């Protein structure tokens, strides 16, 4: 009998073409997703005079620089050039491009799954660290740099060291107002941004099984913020029913064979993990970041940490973060005034995220300005069909088109210097949302709560008598 295997073992061996004595494996890439940032890689390909190996497995998306106001001319010529370069590369190499005006356009990690390009059992690469998102389907998915993007373009393969396997098991019921985002910020604050370094995380436990695909994607998306290059969840009924019938999903007998193959994609009961971490779902509260790293997060009911009570090396990091964020040690994080809010991004820009924010905002006004950018044009259309756009607009927020938008600010959607933003995004790094911007990460429902009160607020009382 063969030894028990993890999901990672199964996915890895299915893609391994060559394994070297030095520990590296050459892996086959089933889907390669590229965005505007791929210009360096296409330039490398051109410099070698190499051809694209598999145009049918390569998909291009306009997202990082996508203007979220689609009417009129793009004001910034640098943005126009980035879009034109991607269009030219897609055309030259015969790649399907999800362009700005496409009804299927959106953020790469939203549209991959939405289009059925992301399937269980695949290996998916993209020149973006949040590629870990696709692991939610039981895929091997990880972000790569430009040199590696060029390698995948030229060969449809990638050299990779097999990571160690870590299981993050979350059992127990999540409380009201607690979402996948809170699970992620919770574990990252416990283990640190380097906590899962060198590991692929498999999320397991009944709290994970009970998550929707949207929630699973949020959780896997944030794996990278805890140092793991990939996160994954074994596929189940929830996965199959999400995937079925999507534009690029298998059909007919191919679907039947796929479902049969997916049934094998799980860790054996006896499989050994290099690391096992357990968290009780009932212990997780709505969580917000206070600092400039995703690990600097705490329950919304807690007080801002005091550098004096931190270990030596950490004290300075805490002091620097509080200084940048303009916060006082020891004070409650709740009640901190915010200047604006943002709902969107590959982390929390899906339909369920918009529903969660709208559930809090319905019939209420936002005390601060803010932007709501759906993760894709299809999410936008669906939200409009459900009337969510009207909830946001009537609350006083701006309803815009889809793209990476204010998560990374490349398209010009920026938080001004010194302004504080409650944000459903993934990184609270210094200047991430714009030079001098102050970012607090939280779930879409918590962003909506911050909008309603104009301060960082526990969403739970605002949910009383409502269905979130």
């Amino acid at each position, binding site marked *: 009998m063969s030894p028990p295997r993890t999901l990672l073992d199964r996915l890895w061996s299915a893609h391994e*073409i060559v394994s*070297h004595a*030095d*520990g590296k494996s*050459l892996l*086959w890439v089933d889907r390669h997703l590229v965005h505007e*940032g791929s210009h*360096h890689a296409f*330039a490398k390909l051109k410099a070698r005079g*190499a051809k694209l190996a598999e145009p*049918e*497995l390569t998909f291009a998306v306009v997202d990082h620089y996508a203007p979220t106001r689609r009417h009129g001319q793009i004001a910034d010529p640098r943005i126009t050039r*980035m879009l034109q370069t991607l269009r030219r590369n897609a055309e030259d190499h015969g790649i399907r491009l999800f362009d700005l005006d496409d009804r299927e356009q959106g953020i790469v990690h939203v549209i991959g799954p939405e289009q059925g*390009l992301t399937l269980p*059992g*695949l290996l998916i690469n993209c020149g*973006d*660290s949040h590629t870990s998102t696709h692991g939610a389907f039981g895929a091997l998915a990880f972000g*790569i*740099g430009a*040199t*590696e993007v*060029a*390698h995948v373009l*030229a*060969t*449809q*393969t990638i050299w990779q*060291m097999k990571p160690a396997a870590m299981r993050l098991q979350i059992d127990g019921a999540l409380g009201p107002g607690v979402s996948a985002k809170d699970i992620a910020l919770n574990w990252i604050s416990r283990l640190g*941004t*380097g906590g899962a*370094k*060198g590991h692929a995380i498999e999320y397991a436990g009944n709290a994970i099984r009970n998550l929707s695909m949207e929630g699973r994607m949020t959780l896997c998306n944030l794996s990278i913020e805890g*140092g793991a*290059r990939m996160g994954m969840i074994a596929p189940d009924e929830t996965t199959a029913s999400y995937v079925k019938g999507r*534009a*690029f999903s*298998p*059909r*007919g*007998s*191919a*679907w039947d*064979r*796929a479902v049969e*193959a997916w049934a094998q994609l799980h860790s054996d009961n006896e499989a050994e993990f290099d690391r096992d971490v357990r968290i009780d779902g009932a212990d997780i509260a709505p969580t917000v970041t206070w600092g400039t*790293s995703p*690990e600097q997060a705490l329950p919304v009911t807690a007080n801002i940490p005091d550098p004096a009570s931190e270990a030596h*090396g950490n004290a*300075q*990091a805490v002091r*620097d973060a509080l200084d940048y964020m303009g916060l006082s040690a020891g004070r409650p994080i709740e009640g901190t005034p915010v200047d604006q809010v943002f709902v969107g991004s590959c982390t929390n820009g899906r339909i369920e995220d918009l529903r969660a924010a709208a559930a809090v905002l319905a019939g209420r006004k936002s005390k601060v300005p803010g932007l709501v950018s759906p993760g894709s044009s299809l999410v936008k259309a669906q939200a409009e069909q459900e009337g969510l756009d009207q909830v946001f607009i009537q609350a006083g927020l701006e309803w815009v088109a889809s793209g990476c938008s204010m998560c990374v*600010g*490349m398209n010009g959607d920026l938080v001004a*210097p010194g302004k504080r933003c409650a944000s459903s995004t993934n*990184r609270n*790094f*210094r*200047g*991430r949302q714009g030079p001098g911007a102050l970012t607090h990460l939280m779930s879409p429902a918590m962003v909506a709560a911050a909008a309603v009160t104009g301060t960082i607020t526990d969403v739970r009382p605002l949910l009383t008598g409502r269905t979130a």
Partner: protein
Amino acid sequence: MAGWSEHAGQAVALPLQNVDTDQLIPARFMTHSRSDGYGRFLLHDLRRDAGGNELAEFPLNRHPNASVVVAGHNFGCGSSREAAVYALVDAGIRAVIAPSFGEIFAGNAVNNGLLPAQVSEDDAAALIDRLKEASGPLRIQLETGRISQGDLDLGFTLEPSWRTKLINGWDDIDLTLHHLPEIARHRANQMHDNSWVRPKAGQSWP
């Protein structure tokens, strides 16, 4: 990419943890072509005040000729942007010494001839302590995996395949092209056994 096995240069301490790639190069500079040179964007906002003036006390401003950076843990975390490595390399940096690195950053570094030298927390602290007042000469040997700074001599860790790549200046595509037959076989097997993997599988025969 040219290989190298030994480097001697000035080292500077950057005593910060979690230096993310958004710090190494802010997103707004990433529309530039590499041929423009990325060195001037390195740590652009951290080394300047809000008015855009260089902070005299910032380590890389005090020691603009440094070729080695010693930093705190989790250097290069965050975004996969290889531009962060271009900024370091184009500014003349050959090695970063730290207790740990963002994984994608470390791979990108090696692909561009930049050494991510992993040392213990204690060794990083000792080096930072020595270099905090002034930059100092430092020598790195890839073959032996040793770093020397004055009378201090310490080891660093590096994946063996990365060491080989740095020394030989190898390009992965060249290496991979030797495996074309295995790649073709894998592809053919997949087409045969798991054709559902191809996009839109089954749609021509519903």
